[in-house]
Structures are given as structure tokens and as C-alpha cells.
């Protein structure tokens, strides 16, 4: 008998601790509650957007009935669509089952949440900047109304059905207290037996790799977490656990659950660069700016820029490991895709004293506004960097936000001064 009858679904998901499995790890219960309040439509994302990921395809292939059941629970009568890449076996499988589908062009950014919502509304599959969470709708950068849409990853949707059928206690019996529940991992790249495993956070990375056929003394560098993740040396893969806490010392993360073993014969950093170039090439233009909003890249790229200098030789396969104390998180910005040192940042001219507006420090009780950049609307005027401390321009003239806090007066000035109207206040990051 379904446990869902005793508790509202969102509460049940909260109790289970289910979070988004597409890489965002946002609590599904909270997202669902928001969707109910805004009468959102549902899009189940089965695109496997993260390069190398196969788990959404696996869910559609192996657990379609439960996936559809989960979607029904989440939608609660609202329209549902299943998004999959054009030409994929997943799309064919969904169609064969008679499900309403959303055919997504097979590009890196096209399966991003707001890109799917744009496509579903008849627009292009390119990211919009959601100034309010897309589940509430709101308006895009050009002022057009956005349909409130709940976009949920296929694995997450399947887990909803599982939680409803087996209960939160069963769910929490897997994984770690911080990251409970079973979760899928895709083993890809240079592994003898690539594929999808149903596992849980906290497992030793070495055990996962062994399941894919890589013995303990293997020589493969590994990318954990895909383009949002990081690179581990063969030695580090022996020590790391597959969880946020276990991977963060190496600059890596769970992300969308991909674990990719690299070719041991060529420089791993060149392979990393190839992946960044690939994602950038698929994105280009304004779309990639929407995905490049990684707050930490100035720090990470400093580390990245040091390592390739020693590892540029094709013969070098271990030098890169010695050159850096920690894992090399992939700089999550596509355009340019060249290693950038901190020196590459063009500092806005003028001393802090000469600037008319300055960031206030977060004193207790001080009123602070958190500013964000609409990466789609931004056209690189750079006015924000001239007005705000803590904002610099990258070599192509687009803002890098080192500190998003501003006093209300400063925030109002910058919002009005931006020629592209791309600066907006947003709720502070809660996590």
C-alpha cells in the first residue's frame, strides 16, 4: 500500500531527503511545494545532458512504469512532458510507450532547465535567465512571461515513485545522513565495463571503479562530476569516497553522477581541455554565458593555469599530479576555454576610493542586497565592474562576481546604470 496516502508528497520527500539527481541537488520536496503553489506544468528531463551520462536512458529503459508513476505523483493532474534528445533511443522508447515527449536538440546547454522551458513554449532550446526560480514562471530577460514549470530529472522522478511506494525510512537506509537514498552512477570513458550502477553516496570510489573493471592498481585519472566536477589522480581515486564530503578535498563532486576514466596514455589536462572546448563549441555565443556563471572560477583557474605549464609535454603523465596540491576542478566556463590566471583578469581602472559605489561588508544587521548578472542579457559593457568593488571583468569584458553583496543604494544605482539591464537582485544563496 502506498505510504503517500498518509502524508502530502512534498512532506514525504522532505522526510526522505530526496534531492535533484541532475546535478543541482536541490531538495525535491521544496521544489514540489513551489510547483503546487504556482500550478506549474511538469517536464521530466531524460536528456542525460551531462556529457557521458547514461542514467536517464537507463531509467527509461529499465524502470519506465515507475518513472511514469513518479511523474503522475509530481504532476498531480498538471500537464506532463518527457524531454529527451532528438534521435536518442530514450526518445524512441518514450514515444513507443505513447508518452507526450519534448524533442530536445542534442546540445550541451539545450537540456538545461530554462532551455527546456523555453523550448516547451515554442522558443529555442537556449537558456533563459530565470530571475525568479523557473518553477514560479516570472519573466525572462526580455520581459516575456515564462510558463511556471517544474523540471525534474528522470532519476529523481523515478526516486519519487520509490519513496512513495517504499517509504522514507527505506530511502534513508541508503547513502549517508547528508546525502541519503540510492543514486545512480554512470561509469564511462576508459573502463573495461562502462555502464550505469544503482548505488549510494559514501561508497568508496575504488569500489565503483572496480565494479567497472578497473583494478586497485589502475593508472587512470578520473573526472568525477563531469563539467562541474574535478580531476583525480589514480592514487586519489583509491582514497576518495563518492560523496560531496569525500570528493570536495579533490575539487570534485557528485554532480550528475558521472565518473569518467581518462586515457592514461595522454596528458589528462589536454583531455580535460578537450571536454571544455567541446562544451564551449556546442554552446557558443550568449548561451554559454548562461552556464559560465561559476563563482569560483577565478580561484580554480589560478590552479589550472599552473598545472598545464608543467604537463604540456605529451610524455608527461604524472607531472600534472605533482604540480598541484589538490584536484583540478574544471573551470566551468566555456568561451575561450583557455587557462586563465588571476593576472589575466582585467581589473577595472580606478582605485576603490575613486569609485562612487562600494560594497558594504556584511555587518550583523546591515541591510545587504545580493546582486546577480543575467548572463543572457549581459552584453559586456562593464559598467558594473566600474561601479562595484568585488566585480572584475574577464579578458573578454564580461563580469566576474567575486562578491555579490551591495548596499541597497548601490544595488539600485548599478541596476539602473547597466546599459543592458542585466543586473538584478536575488535571494541570497541559502546553501
Amino acid at each position, binding site marked *: 500500500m502506498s505510504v503517500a496516502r498518509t502524508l502530502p508528497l512534498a512532506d514525504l520527500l522532505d522526510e526522505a531527503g530526496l534531492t535533484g539527481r541532475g546535478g543541482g541537488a536541490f531538495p525535491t520536496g521544496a521544489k514540489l511545494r513551489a510547483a503546487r503553489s504556482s500550478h506549474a506544468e511538469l517536464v521530466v528531463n531524460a536528456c542525460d545532458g551531462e556529457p557521458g551520462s547514461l542514467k536517464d536512458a537507463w531509467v527509461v529503459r529499465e524502470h519506465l512504469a515507475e518513472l511514469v508513476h513518479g511523474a503522475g505523483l509530481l504532476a498531480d493532474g498538471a500537464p506532463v512532458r518527457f524531454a529527451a534528445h532528438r534521435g536518442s533511443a530514450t526518445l524512441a522508447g518514450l514515444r513507443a510507450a505513447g508518452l507526450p515527449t519534448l524533442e530536445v*536538440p542534442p*546540445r550541451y546547454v*539545450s537540456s538545461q532547465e530554462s532551455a527546456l522551458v523555453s*523550448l516547451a513554449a515554442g*522558443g*529555442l*532550446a*537556449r537558456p533563459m535567465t530565470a530571475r525568479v526560480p523557473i518553477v514560479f514562471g516570472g*519573466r525572462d*530577460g*526580455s*520581459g*516575456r512571461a515564462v510558463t511556471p514549470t517544474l523540471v525534474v530529472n528522470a532519476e529523481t522522478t523515478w526516486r519519487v515513485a520509490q519513496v512513495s511506494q517504499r517509504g522514507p525510512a527505506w530511502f534513508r537506509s541508503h547513502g549517508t545522513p547528508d546525502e541519503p537514498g540510492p543514486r545512480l552512477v554512470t561509469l564511462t570513458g576508459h573502463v573495461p565495463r562502462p555502464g550505469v550502477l544503482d548505488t549510494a553516496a559514501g561508497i568508496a570510489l575504488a569500489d565503483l571503479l572496480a565494479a567497472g573493471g578497473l583494478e586497485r592498481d589502475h593508472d587512470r585519472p578520473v573526472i568525477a562530476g563531469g563539467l562541474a566536477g574535478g580531476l583525480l589522480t589514480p592514487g586519489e581515486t583509491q582514497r576518495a569516497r563518492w560523496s560531496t564530503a569525500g570528493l570536495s578535498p579533490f575539487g570534485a563532486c557528485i554532480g550528475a553522477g558521472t565518473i569518467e576514466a581518462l586515457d592514461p596514455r595522454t596528458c589528462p589536462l589536454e583531455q580535460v581541455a578537450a571536454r571544455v572546448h567541446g562544451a564551449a563549441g*556546442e*554552446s*557558443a*555565443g*550568449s*548561451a554559454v554565458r548562461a552556464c559560465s556563471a561559476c563563482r569560483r572560477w577565478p580561484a580554480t583557474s589560478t590552479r589550472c593555469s599552473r598545472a598545464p605549464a608543467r604537463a604540456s609535454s605529451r610524455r608527461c603523465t604524472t607531472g600534472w599530479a605533482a604540480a598541484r596540491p589538490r584536484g583540478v576542478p574544471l573551470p566551468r566556463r566555456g*568561451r575561450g576555454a583557455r587557462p586563465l590566471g588571476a593576472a589575466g583578469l582585467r581589473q*577595472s*581602472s*580606478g582605485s576603490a576610493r*575613486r*569609485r562612487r559605489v562600494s560594497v558594504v561588508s556584511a555587518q550583523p544587521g546591515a541591510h545587504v542586497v545580493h546582486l546577480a548578472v543575467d548572463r543572457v*542579457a549581459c552584453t*559586456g*559593457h*562593464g*559598467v558594473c*565592474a*566600474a*561601479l562595484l568593488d568585488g566585480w572584475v*571583468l574577464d579578458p573578454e*569584458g564580461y563580469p566576474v562576481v567575486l562578491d555579490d553583496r551591495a548596499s541597497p543604494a548601490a544595488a539600485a544605482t548599478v*541596476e*539602473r*546604470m547597466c*546599459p543592458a*539591464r542585466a543586473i538584478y537582485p536575488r535571494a541570497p544563496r541559502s546553501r
Partner: protein
Amino acid sequence: MTTNELLWVTSRATGVVSLVLLTAVLTLGVALSGSRSGSASARATVTAVHRWLGLGIGTFVVAHVVTVIVETWVDIGWLSLVLPFTSGYERLWVGLGTLVLDVLVDVVVTSALRHRIPERAWRLVHLTGYALWPVAVIHGIALGTSTTPLLRWASIGCALLGGAAIAWRLLVPHHDARQRATAAAGVWS
């Protein structure tokens, strides 16, 4: 100098100043939209000057229009303030001036309210600035008659400067035009 004379001379002077300011605002705006060179603080300054000068034009335009209606040498009535081609004096050229005034009010009001209206609406109205300016120049050259050649030469100078700015904007591609073209050429739906 009689009051009427004073009004007439003031109208002439504020008219030519309005045209010079309008040309300056246009040129700064064109530079902002077409170029990404220069330091961030220089760009912030240009942005601010473009905006405040644009707002400041209003003062001179109001003086120009009110004085020419109030003075009695030429027959321009209050109706000509809003309705083009209604004046007894130089119906065509004064009518162009009325057109400029109407469009200018739209551009200034939408810019002042920019944070409250859809970006696309603002952009559409703002682009009419490119049509407004040449009409203002024609109005200025046609009516800038005087015993001193200063008025007409000021108008011609504005025509050359603004024309060069617009030509530059049309010839120079957007700073990331190549990237936009590459992105747009992909399959996105």
C-alpha cells in the same frame, strides 16, 4: 531689444543648442552600443553622460518651442506643439520639428521608465532615435536662417558628426557578432 525680439533670439539659440546636444547624445549612444573598447569606468561615464544629457535636452527644447510659439513675428500656434504640419509659418519644416518633439518625448519618457516597462518595448522606442535625429537636422538646416552663418554651420556640423557616427555603427559589426552567428547557426529547436 523688444520682448518679442528677445523671444525670437532665444528660440533660435535654444534650437541650435538642442540640436548640438541631441547630436552629442546620439553619438555617445552609438558609441556605447557599437563599441566595447575603453576602460570600464570610461564606459560608465559615457553611459551616465548619454543618459543625463538626454534628459537635459528637454530644458532647451521646451525653451525653444515655448518662445517660438509665444513670440508674434511668425505664425506658429499651440496646436503645432503636438500636431505636425499645422503652423502657418514654414508648414513643412516646422512640422518636422513637431515630429521630432513628439518622438523625443516618447524616447525620453520610455527611458525614464525603463525599469518599469518590458525591455523590448524600450528598445523599439529607443531605436526610433535613429529616425528622429536626421529629421531634427533637416529641421535645423532648413530653418537655421540668419544673417550670421553660425546657425546653419552648426546644423551642418551636427549632420557631419552624427552621420559619421551612424555610418560607423552600420559598418562596424557587433563586438561578438561572429560568436552570435556561430551560435545562431546551430540547431536550437
